[in-house]
């Protein structure tokens, strides 16, 4: 009798249907969110840990030609470490002779490479700078870049 019951239960077993309605809802929400944050020009940026860019009302797109990254502890050009920064002071940087600095030498190399390739001359340096850095640090970079033949800059900011 018991065996007969068990056989009956086995035959009446129905394969459960997968309820995908909730999954569909979730995917729809994700899809809408991603459609809103879609960018036709996605760019990969390496921003230093702990670096906070200031917010601005600027609507101009940033063209990442040569990037100079100024965080609270390091100075980088195109992701290459150039010097350490300690309390807003760039190490091994002589204010009287910026042309002796590593930054100047590096920018001059880029300048020479561009000149030899007959690249466009009005290229701008994009400065990614932490919002808590004082102007004296930025000024050293700006001044040196100007001396190396890059008088135009773009300050990278986050859209407000």
């Amino acid at each position, binding site marked *: 009798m018991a065996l007969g019951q068990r056989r009956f239960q086995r035959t009446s077993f129905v394969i459960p*249907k997968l309820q*995908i*309605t909730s*999954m*569909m809802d979730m*995917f*729809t929400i*994700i*899809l809408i969110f*991603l*459609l809103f*944050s*879609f*960018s*036709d020009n*996605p*760019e990969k*940026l390496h921003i230093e840990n702990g670096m906070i*860019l*200031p*917010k*601005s*009302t*600027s*609507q*101009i*797109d*940033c*063209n990442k030609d040569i990037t100079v990254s100024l965080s609270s502890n390091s100075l980088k050009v195109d992701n290459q470490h150039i010097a350490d920064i300690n309390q807003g002071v760039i190490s091994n940087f002589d204010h009287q002779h910026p042309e002796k600095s590593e930054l100047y030498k590096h920018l001059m190399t880029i300048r020479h490479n561009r000149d030899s390739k007959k690249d466009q001359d009005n290229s*701008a340096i*994009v400065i990614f*700078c*932490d*919002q*808590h*850095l*004082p*102007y*004296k640090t*930025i*000024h050293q970079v*700006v*001044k040196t870049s*100007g001396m190396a033949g890059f*008088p*135009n*800059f*773009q*300050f*990278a*900011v*986050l*859209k407000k």
Partner: protein
Amino acid sequence: MKRFGRNRKINDTDTDIDMVPIMNMFLVLIPFLLSSASFFDINAIHTSVPVKQTKVNQDNPQTNETKTIIPVIEMKANTIELYALSEQVAVNDLKKWDISLKKQGEQFPLADIQRYLQDMKKHYPESDTILVIPDDNILYETIIQTMDVARNTNQNQLFPNVVLSDKI
């Protein structure tokens, strides 16, 4: 009658929509959109350092509408000095633009600066360049806020060309 009843019973059964193709489409779309999504919107503020310029002779008499003036914002630790430079405007007229504003707590009076610049733009609409001279210890964030105020208001453009400079 019996046949009719049977037909109705067949029509009443639930018809499940096949969601699998839609799910497949979503699974293709989501990785694609994820790869092209931008979660940070990075923009830029154009600026430059002063460059040497050759003097251009201007024999034609100019009105205020065609004259250009360069407002200067000198950001100091506790005050902000505002004045103007121009080769086309008389010194006495330029002196009218000399003002000094004190910091309000930790903030610079950005609204007052904007009002000042709007007034200047009204008098000299052809001007488009501004000089910003920050003190050594002024934070980058404050400089950007000041640049924003100098470049445009909510309605119109003021001085879109910002030049960072040393003290003249």
